[in-house]
């Protein structure tokens, strides 16, 4: 079957006052339907840039992206994006922030209200639905942002370090919850993270990127069975994979 996401020779150069910033150098990448793919790489190597290009928020300087066979030329339907920061609207309550997705897509808010409340409970911020964002901690805000990306049940989830702001325990819980949602729903997930163990816990494939200008350095397949839990990370295959990714990231490409 053809891949859901097909990134072909994408190059990205930001034009800035101080001259061009070469963020991505020739990235080619496929993500199959229903696959969970993580992207790891040093800070500033263009992970967020790549995600924004796939979401249709940025046009690449060269190359092209197809999602579901259609060439991406702008934001497309069927996607839920979690950004690196929560970006909640300060004047809307948590529930209204989540339902923004529904409002903008001209769906019925009444119909999605219950689903929103279920998601709020799922990520563990129940009781805060009528609060304004400033009344929540950064980690809680990020969990609300995850609800907002999931509310319309998109087949493709693009997540940019969604759990970076959470404490270790909550992060573990959210990882397992995300795995459960993914197993149940068959969604395709592109997941950016700085945590190699997190990537191993969740992914089928891990894309290791090189430092800026970013390119795909290596693909690491993670094959051991699911559902995985924290104990799975102690398995020899997992330990070996962690070591391998560390080694790849440690080597400087020429």
């Amino acid at each position, binding site marked *: 079957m053809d891949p859901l996401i097909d990134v072909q020779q994408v190059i990205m150069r930001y034009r800035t006052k101080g001259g061009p910033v070469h963020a991505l150098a020739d990235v080619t990448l496929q993500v199959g339907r229903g696959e969970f793919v993580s992207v790891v790489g040093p800070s500033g190597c263009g992970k967020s840039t790549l995600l924004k290009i796939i979401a249709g928020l940025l046009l690449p300087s060269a190359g092209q992206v197809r999602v579901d066979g259609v060439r991406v030329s702008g934001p497309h339907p069927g996607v839920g994006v979690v*950004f690196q920061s929560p970006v909640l609207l300060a004047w809307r309550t948590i529930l209204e922030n989540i339902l923004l997705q529904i409002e*903008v897509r001209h769906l019925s808010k009444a119909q999605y209200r219950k689903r929103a409340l279920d998601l709020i409970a799922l990520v563990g911020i129940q009781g805060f639905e009528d609060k304004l964002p400033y009344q929540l901690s950064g980690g809680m805000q990020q969990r609300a942002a995850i609800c907002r990306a999931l509310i319309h049940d998109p087949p493709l989830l693009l997540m940019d370090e969604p759990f970076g702001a959470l404490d270790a325990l909550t992060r573990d819980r959210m990882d397992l919850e995300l795995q459960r949602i993914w197993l149940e729903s068959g969604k395709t997930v592109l997941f950016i993270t700085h945590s190699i163990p997190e990537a191993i816990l969740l992914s089928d494939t891990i894309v290791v990127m090189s430092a800026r200008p970013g390119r795909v350095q290596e693909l690491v397949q993670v094959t051991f069975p699911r559902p995985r839990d924290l104990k799975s990370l102690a398995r020899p295959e997992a330990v070996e994979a962690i070591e391998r990714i560390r080694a790849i990231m440690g080597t400087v490409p020429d």
Partner: protein
Amino acid sequence: MKEPADRLPWHEQWGDWLYPLGTIVFLVIAWELFVRLLKIPSYLVPRPYDVLLVLVDRHAEIFAHALVTAQEVALGYLLGVAVAVPCAILICWSRLLERSLMPLIVYTQTFPKSAIAPLFLIWFGYGILPKVVIAFLIGFFPMLIAMITGLRAVEPDAVDMIRSMSASKLQTFTKVRIPYSLPFFFSGAKVAATLSIVGALVGEFIGAEQGLGYLLIRANASLDTEFLFAILIPLVVLGRLFFSFVGLVERYVIGWHLAAREGAQGS
């Protein structure tokens, strides 16, 4: 939306009023003593008590003129809001308009708008219209610039966020960019509130038959310093009322912003 805060002791609850009020009482007494002890003639600096007497004595006359000034200010200001907000949105809507107009608009900042007030008298006569136009013009630019600044200050991530939902350009404006700009707009709107009073007064100074500015000129011509001082009081009140009104609207429209700011500071 607001949590019931722990009760403050009474002098803290009213502190925002009591402490400045104390300062005023102190200053008035000091003034009275100063004028008496140094025997300053009343045509230079009148005694506060005499000023108060004149104010009470001629209150009907002063009030009627204050109403005219208030009307000019209110009309000019509202016209300013009604024109500045759509103009700002229009300018930020199109990159072309923004690039061609914005540098010029910034340039007008340094131009003293009251300089063209005499021209408006020629065009619009001696009634309230020229004053309304001057009040409008003086208040309009700070509001326009504040609103444009706000529309441009939007977090790029917030725009990406709503665009990722396949939002239309109209939706990115109504749901993200305009609300984002409102705190900026209101800071401009408060500056404009005081400026438009200046605008109306300048108009009245140049040529009028009514209004507090006209009364000031008249009192000045007859060296009636007590009356002059008495007119300043309704001017202060008018300015304060007007400013508070804008603050009230601000609290109503962007309460979320003020709450978040106070929340961030810790109560």
